[in-house]
């Protein structure tokens, strides 16, 4: 399908069938919008102008870059397990109000994964990874740094086991940075492919939600740790990752605050919660969409000034990116990616942990519930309601199973508010791509 959209004075055409992005003048934009059934006055176009526009459209069609038929690709069928999210502990040293994980406890007892269970999870991954060479493990919590020694032992164990099998692990840790000392920093820089550091932005925003067990804001306790860590990180991957809520709908200021503090790899996500005063609601959407534009403008301004930074959601890789099979497959949770609870129980992903309906087995049993796995394996772009006529489908892939399920009760029913934010971020990402290309060619 063809999607036309405006970003300030710029007019864009995105063809989802081919994945091409074009820019056009107002007349062509109006003509295409009219052609696509949108309200657009084209009465002022002369016959010659229409002829020229139609000729341009025909040329692109012939080149397979406009109105291209959409893919018939379907998800690849595979039983290989690629990745595990290891919940090394269900306990946390913070008590963040919006925490989907019940402030670290996952609606159960606070507990730590034993080293034996974590090693068994590594064995389970290797045993079920088939011919796949590169395996991924994310140490997650709760707060993983409460178990640093266990993580170290498990990483060394995994590397040894992988080497013997001709495989390699990529490790990630997600941390609130409260315990991110020199020892942890050294270990992370040596062993972690990626580190995700939670920081919500401005001190008052962060402190309003991310509190210590004693109820005090944690900003001052983590900011220097994160700065020191990022300074030591070199060219290895990291993300400073924040969450915004209904309390800071001006979240672009938080992203820019993070950039001003020297962090050049940033992600900022809308909260997933049903807490009334924090939840993102439909009435917030106009402000949120405008805020993404404000962020996009400042992002480009800083890029032009040589002070650019990486914002996760403005990266849209149209020229490379995944193959079509991946693009229609969604995230892989419950089929190639699983979460392991501290007792070894397996769930489709971290957002389902603790929900007995989604328990898929245990790493000690070594097998997965075929019924649940089958359901997740079948979930793809083509089982999603509403996605068929959405321009963003091959970029978003139908959204997050867990978010869909928690908001609408159906993994295949995308949550409308999330869809609107996703589409806006993708349009911003396309604008970023076009303007960066223009600056490069100057």
């Amino acid at each position, binding site marked *: 399908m063809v999607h036309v959209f405006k970003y300030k004075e710029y007019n864009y055409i995105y063809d989802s069938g081919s994945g091409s992005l074009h820019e056009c003048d107002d007349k062509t934009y109006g003509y295409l919008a009219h052609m696509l059934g949108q309200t657009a006055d084209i009465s002022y176009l002369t016959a010659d102008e229409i002829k020229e526009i139609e000729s341009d459209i025909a040329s692109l069609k012939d080149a397979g870059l406009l109105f291209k038929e959409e893919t018939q690709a379907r998800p690849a069928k595979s039983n290989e397990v690629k990745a595990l999210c290891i919940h090394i502990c269900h306990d946390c040293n913070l008590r963040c109000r919006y925490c989907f994980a019940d402030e670290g406890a996952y609606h159960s007892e606070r507990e730590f994964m034993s080293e034996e269970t974590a090693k068994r999870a590594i064995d389970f991954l290797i045993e079920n990874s088939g011919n796949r060479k590169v395996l991924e493990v994310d140490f997650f919590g709760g707060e993983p740094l409460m178990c640093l020694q266990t993580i170290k032992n498990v990483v060394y164990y995994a590397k040894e086991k992988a080497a013997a099998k001709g495989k390699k692990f990529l490790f990630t840790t997600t941390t609130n940075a409260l315990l991110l000392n020199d020892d942890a920093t050294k270990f992370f820089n040596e062993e972690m492919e990626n580190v995700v550091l939670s920081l919500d932005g401005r001190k008052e925003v962060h402190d309003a939600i991310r509190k210590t067990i004693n109820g005090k804001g944690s900003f001052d306790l983590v900011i220097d740790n994160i700065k020191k860590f990022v300074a030591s990180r070199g060219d290895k991957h990291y993300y400073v990752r924040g969450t915004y809520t209904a309390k800071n709908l001006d979240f672009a200021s938080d992203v820019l605050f993070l950039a001003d503090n020297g962090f050049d790899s940033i992600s900022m996500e809308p909260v997933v919660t049903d807490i009334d005063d924090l939840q993102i609601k439909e009435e917030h959407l106009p402000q949120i969409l405008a805020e993404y534009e404000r962020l996009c403008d400042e992002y480009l301004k800083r890029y032009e000034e040589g002070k650019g930074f990486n914002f996760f959601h403005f990266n849209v890789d*149209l020229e490379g990116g995944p193959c079509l099979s991946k693009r229609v497959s969604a995230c892989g949770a419950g089929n190639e990616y699983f979460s392991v609870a501290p007792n070894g129980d397996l769930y489709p992903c971290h957002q389902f942990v603790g929900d007995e309906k989604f328990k898929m087995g245990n790493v000690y049993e070594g097998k997965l519930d075929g019924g649940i796995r089958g359901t997740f394996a079948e979930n793809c772009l083509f089982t999603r309601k509403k996605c068929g006529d959405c321009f963003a489908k091959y970029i978003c892939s139908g959204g997050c199973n867990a978010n869909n399920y928690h908001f609408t009760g159906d993994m295949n029913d995308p949550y409308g508010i999330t869809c609107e934010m996703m589409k806006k971020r993708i349009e911003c990402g396309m604008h970023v791509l076009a303007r960066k290309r223009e600056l490069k060619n100057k």
Partner: protein
Amino acid sequence: MIKTIAKPAEKKVTACGECRSTCQSACKTSCTVGNQSCERITREENPEKITK
């Protein structure tokens, strides 16, 4: 006037399976597949990523 900004490399249904599990990224709540790279191409272009 229409100017092409991005013309994808030929989209193949390679399904080699080397791609990352999408959720192992920065967000863990609102992932997009399209902002990821093809892992196989990345690794072929950066062989040290699999040998180190």
